[in-house]
């Protein structure tokens, strides 16, 4: 049984040597070639002094080079720290100050952009996959040492990956994930989705996040293949690859699928007609969107899950198999993962009662890297406290209803912003929406930030009138603000604290 992440590649090379493993816009690699290249780079990294347990950062866009660099870190026995390719220097500095990485694997553009920050943070070696005077050349590094897997001192409980999450509060935290944590989450996904060697997925989600990286791992664990590029920006090329790569899977976000259906629906239907499944996550999938996608692709198995970087894939559900009645659910717990709903006083609540969702199980992190304060808040009484509000039904299906910290207090009345957002998102002309509680002298007020469709601008007066019919009066926004963009994390979650700051500043402008 595979217990360590590097074994995904080494076992894959043994079992599926010549089969396609990863393809990107530049080319493709087989399992054997990928394992060889990652092993050679791992040897080079060890030769340059990278030791077991050292942190080594990857800043690269989705592609074969990202996969090679990430697995090279793992094969070298290091803790891999994948970071978004567009990471701002300030965020990079904050992360580096926290986990003190020794190496950075990147490309010429990022080596130039982050070089001075990396040096100030004490990063000893910057290694680039393009030749650049700002860094060592990866190809030369790969020829320095002896190719291999340097995991003699690594056990399943060793730290494998640090995943930095800005969360919804803004301050980056390094989520500690052991080999055992990740492998348990992968077993959960593989068992539920039913991956096989004939599966091929188009992954445009960032590989620097658990959602995208998980789909890469699952395919490689099962002899499948992945075509990957960063995001849906080149939407024509992505949908072309869904068809030409003969993809069976196409994971995405609700916002991404919303854009594809609204703007390119007929092409998605045509080029995606062979898709077997799509896992959709990062934000709640509105039931009407699930129905729209199912109508567009009737044979598609639409799956959603609930998980945090800190507790990956804790539940799963096939909306297709369960039907519209469950479109608001995120599924039941998987494997040995346990879920409960707790009251503010810490009591376990019964089915149907709303409280904080808490999780226990082998995929749950042991905490944040060198951040005891946040770790103590996260892990209490043997449970991971998610900060999400929800309830379980009698069969154990979980329904998420909001965020504990996001609840707006309007003169003592509690408003769940997610409920208001669900109503607002149904109006024509509303492309994206976020609701937040903005502090005013007499307390918080509900404010809606709306990204408007420029061709059919929404009529805020009508929306307000309609809201009064659909929501209690205290839940109806007192102000509607048109914005260019809703601040979201890389994985698509609303950064409500950032939004509140923006809306408060606007108040005082």
């Amino acid at each position, binding site marked *: 049984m595979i217990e360590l992440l590097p074994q995904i590649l080494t076992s894959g090379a043994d079992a599926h040597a010549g089969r396609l493993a990863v393809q990107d816009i530049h080319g493709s690699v087989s399992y054997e070639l990928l394992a060889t290249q990652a092993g050679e780079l791992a040897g080079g990294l060890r030769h340059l002094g990278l030791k077991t347990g050292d942190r080594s950062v990857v800043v690269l866009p989705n592609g074969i080079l990202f996969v090679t660099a990430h697995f090279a870190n793992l094969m070298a026995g290091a803790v891999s720290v994948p970071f978004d390719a*567009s990471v701002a220097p300030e965020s990079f500095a904050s992360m580096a100050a926290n986990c003190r990485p020794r190496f950075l694997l990147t490309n010429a553009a990022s080596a130039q952009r982050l070089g001075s920050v990396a040096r100030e943070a004490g990063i000893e070696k910057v290694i680039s996959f393009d030749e650049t005077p700002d860094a060592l050349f990866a190809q030369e590094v790969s020829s320095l040492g002896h190719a291999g897997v340097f995991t003699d001192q690594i056990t399943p409980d060793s730290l494998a990956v640090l995943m930095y999450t800005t969360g919804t509060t803004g301050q980056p935290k390094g989520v500690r994930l052991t080999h055992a944590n990740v492998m348990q989450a992968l077993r959960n996904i593989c068992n539920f989705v039913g991956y096989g060697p004939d599966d091929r997925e188009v992954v445009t989600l960032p590989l620097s996040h658990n959602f995208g990286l998980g789909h890469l791992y699952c395919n490689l664990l099962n002899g499948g293949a992945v075509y990957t590029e*960063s*995001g*849906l*920006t*080149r*939407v*024509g*090329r992505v*949908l072309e690859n869904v068809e030409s790569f003969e993809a069976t899977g196409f994971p995405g976000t609700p*916002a*991404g699928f919303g*854009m594809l259906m609204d*703007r*390119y*629906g*007929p*092409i998605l239907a045509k080029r995606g007609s062979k898709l077997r499944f799509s896992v959709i996550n990062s934000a709640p999938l509105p039931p009407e969107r699930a129905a729209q996608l199912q109508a567009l692709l009737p044979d598609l198995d639409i799956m959603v899950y609930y998980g945090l970087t800190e507790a990956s894939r804790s539940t799963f559900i096939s909306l297709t198999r369960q039907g519209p009645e469950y479109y608001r659910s995120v599924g039941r717990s998987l494997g040995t993962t346990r879920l409960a709903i707790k009251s503010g006083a810490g009591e376990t609540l019964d089915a149907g009662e709303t409280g904080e969702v808490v999780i226990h199980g082998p995929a749950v992190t042991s905490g944040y890297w060198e951040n005891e304060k946040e770790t103590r808040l996260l892990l209490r009484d043997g449970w991971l406290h998610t900060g999400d509000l929800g309830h379980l039904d009698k069969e154990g299906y979980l329904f998420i209803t909001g965020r504990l910290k996001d609840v707006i207090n309007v003169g003592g009345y509690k408003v769940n912003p997610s409920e208001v957002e669900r109503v607002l998102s149904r109006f024509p002309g509303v*492309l*994206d929406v976020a609701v937040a509680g903005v502090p005013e002298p007499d307390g918080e007020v509900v404010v809606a930030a709306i*990204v408007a*469709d*420029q*061709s059919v601008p929404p009529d805020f007066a009508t929306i307000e009138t309609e809201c009064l019919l659909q929501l209690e009066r205290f839940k109806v926004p007192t102000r509607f603000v048109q914005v*260019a*963009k809703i601040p979201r994390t890389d994985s698509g979650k609303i950064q409500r604290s950032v939004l509140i700051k923006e809306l408060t500043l606007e108040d005082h402008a």
Partner: protein
Amino acid sequence: MIEDTIKNIVCTTLKIRPEDCSEDLAAGDIPQWDSLGHVNVLMAVEKHFGFAFDVVDSIDIESVGDIVDMVKKYTQGGAQA
């Protein structure tokens, strides 16, 4: 003229400086031109010229130059506006 109009729409929509907007500038080249920015650019062009791109035409538009070519196709004969 169409070139200047398109560049102006792209700059206004993506909030970038005119000197940063060449015909080669394409989706994904700058953070502002992400998938949402791309849709906003196409909608702004459609609104300005008063037509909607056919989905088959719009799917492969990637750069400022692609938009210029497509608008010419719609305004100077060829495709149905």
